[in-house]
């Protein structure tokens, strides 16, 4: 892969409900922040990729809501429907294909404007499965049980993820749910769907995020500090939940392996120094860490107990507070990328860790069907 870097990032604060803003208002804020961060004007942006979801936005052609505010009126533009990491991947390909030197990528959603149970129920197959009335939470709970059964991971270990991430969020001014919790608080919170308590689940939030990707030939032109894209890959597993071994994430392992190979990484658990993982639910942080290869299968829970993934641990995971700290669907993966960029540029303020190379991860679909993995480096 040719060299490309992220040279600007911007995001709104993650909130439970941004009453006074439309999608366009949020995009305007995030895009302008990214432009300022990169030292660019909108004219320096060669093309735009927005990321959104028609169901979450309650409008078909959801990209129409943010195109103008993202500066796309007189530019080439496209829209990815899926997590922001996928939108960023497409944006990357457009910066590498020779047609454009810089791509602005945005991702947004306002969870406050819809009913998440119904929205995620709509991802079930309408002929065979949707009638059951399941949604993202019940499906994920089923996966959590399978994972815990196979690996022996305990509810207490799951709770520790919540304690860690909400605790990390305290230092992140853009997060939605900074909280000082104990394991007992998590286990004592309302049971939503066995084994997931309320505090095992991320919220569904409002936010918009934007990044600017530049290919090598354009990076030096702008003042934004570049964070280099060393590897990026995505992969999807089968769709029907019964077709998969829910306790494993083959597609994630495949995507991660490809991203590591592109980046020349042979020992990920040693060479990755910070990770922002898609923790829509507590068990997911542990499961994805194992399936990515950042620790061996079945060991994430005990490593977490030993403090290895704490902000001052061997491999800080979700120093930003992750999705548990604030979860605007669709934008969430792009925010993982932004958080790694902040870490590698040493701009993470009170939740800064010491890292030169990091991993960002996003998910699309039920129970982590489709994954996108990014490897970023402060050096080219």
């Amino acid at each position: 892969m040719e060299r490309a870097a992220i040279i600007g990032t911007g995001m709104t604060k993650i909130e439970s409900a941004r009453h006074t803003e439309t999608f366009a208002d949020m995009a305007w804020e995030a895009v302008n922040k990214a432009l300022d961060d990169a030292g660019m004007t909108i004219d320096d942006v060669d093309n735009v990729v927005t990321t959104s979801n028609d169901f979450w936005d309650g409008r078909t052609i959801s990209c129409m809501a943010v195109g103008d505010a993202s500066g796309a009126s007189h530019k080439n533009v496209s829209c990815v429907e899926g997590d922001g990491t996928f939108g960023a991947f497409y944006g990357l390909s457009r910066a590498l294909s020779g047609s454009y030197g810089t791509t602005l990528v945005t991702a947004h959603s306002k969870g406050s404007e819809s009913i998440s149970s119904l929205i995620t129920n709509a991802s079930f197959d309408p002929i065979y499965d949707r009638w059951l009335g399941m949604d993202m939470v019940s499906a994920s709970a089923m996966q959590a049980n399978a994972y815990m059964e196979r690996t022996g991971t305990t509810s207490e270990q799951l709770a520790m993820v919540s304690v860690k991430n909400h605790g990390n969020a305290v230092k992140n001014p853009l997060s939605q749910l900074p909280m000082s919790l104990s394991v007992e608080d998590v286990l004592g919170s309302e049971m939503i769907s066995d084994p997931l308590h309320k505090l095992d689940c991320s919220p569904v939030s409002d936010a918009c995020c934007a990044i600017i990707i530049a290919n090598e030939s354009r990076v030096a032109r702008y003042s934004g500090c570049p964070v280099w894209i060393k590897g990026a890959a995505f992969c999807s597993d089968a769709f029907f939940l019964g077709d998969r071994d829910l306790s494993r994430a083959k597609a994630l392992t495949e995507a991660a392996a490809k991203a590591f190979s592109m980046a020349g990484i042979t020992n990920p658990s040693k060479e990755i120094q910070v990770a922002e993982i898609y923790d829509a639910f507590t068990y997911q942080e542990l499961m994805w860490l194992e399936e990515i290869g950042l620790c061996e299968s079945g060991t994430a829970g005990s490593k977490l107990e030993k403090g290895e993934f704490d902000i001052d641990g061997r491999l800080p995971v979700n120093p930003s507070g992750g999705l548990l700290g604030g979860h605007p669907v669709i934008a969430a993966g792009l925010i993982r990328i932004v958080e790694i960029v902040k870490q590698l540029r040493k701009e993470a303020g009170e939740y800064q860790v010491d890292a030169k190379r990091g991993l960002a991860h996003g998910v699309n679909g039920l129970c982590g069907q489709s994954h996108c993995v990014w490897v970023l480096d402060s050096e080219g």
Partner: protein
Amino acid sequence: MGKNRVAIVGTGQTFHKSHRPDVNGQELINEAVQAALKDADMKINDIDAVVIGNMDHFEGINYVDCWSVDGSGGVMKPIIKLTTGGTTGSTLAIGGYHLVGSGLFDRVLVIGWEKNSESDTTGAITTAFDPVWDRLVFAGAISGLAVEAQSYMAKYGATDKDGARVSVRDRKHACNNPHAQLRKEVSIEEVLESPVLADPIHLLDVCPRTDGACAVIMASEKYAEKIARTPDWIWGTANRHKYSYLGDVNWGELDSMAEAAGEMFEKCGIKEPRKEINVIEMYQPYSFAGIIWIEDMGIVERGKGAEYIWSGATDMGGELPINPSGGVIACNPIGATGLIRCAEAAMQVMGRAGDRQVPDVNHAVSTGFGGCMWTDILLHGKQKPQI
């Protein structure tokens, strides 16, 4: 212009119908995919990545990229969804072009599909517009198009008879296309006597609702010449999705087409499109667009569109045939439609267009339309582009 050459090496479509009760959405997608693989003499394992799209609210399925994998061949592959309303199909083609052109993938399967019979098309399209400002006064796609036609007619004196001549052309062309849904000719009188939907648009001026899927395989230069004897090289792409609010639109002129076509022709070195382009597959959702948008494309001067159509220049056998496939008036599975235009243009360049083949095609243009008067445009060519 990209720096890596990209070509279309195979295409496939279903035989489009008003409804396909014999298959569910996945199975419909699979038909088109199998047809494209057969056309390119490839296996699903040869595909490095899949790009798919449709308009969510026509089928009511969320995360279609995930849901489709059994039919689209995406199991244990990278699969990504693009969706931009009516322009989805052409946006997908542009997506394949960049994914291959980036060097990240060598062989990409591009799929557009729609099962419009499964929902209320107008009800779904209306949700595209801003819920506070536009949605309550908007009555689906046809009302917007009628406003455009009225504006053009007021400026240039065209009439609904001019629109009808375009319908006659496309419905006649469709008779040569075994994949088209509507394969019966219509006369000017029949068009003008058909019920008025929104003045000046008659029923026979507009597209039907269709269940259909289309798949296109794109490959890098390294692979393209091994797979296809005459690959269809993508010379360039451009698009404009400007306007989010109906009140902002410059009615009567398709600004997005003028800007996008202008950009594409310029960067591809096309100086006189009317002379250098041999065939156009235009996403023309209603007849009048066939008059107006060729002016915006730069084929003829402003106000001369109707005259050009009446001259027969855009009929089969004319100097610049438009919609040899019968176009959108004969067939409209919305998420696929833009990709079908691309596939039909590719077939023209590759010499695989059967009874609808235009002779000696060197350059073809395919376009997409949708959203709030948006345009996508692609330039296809038999020769390799300069890079």
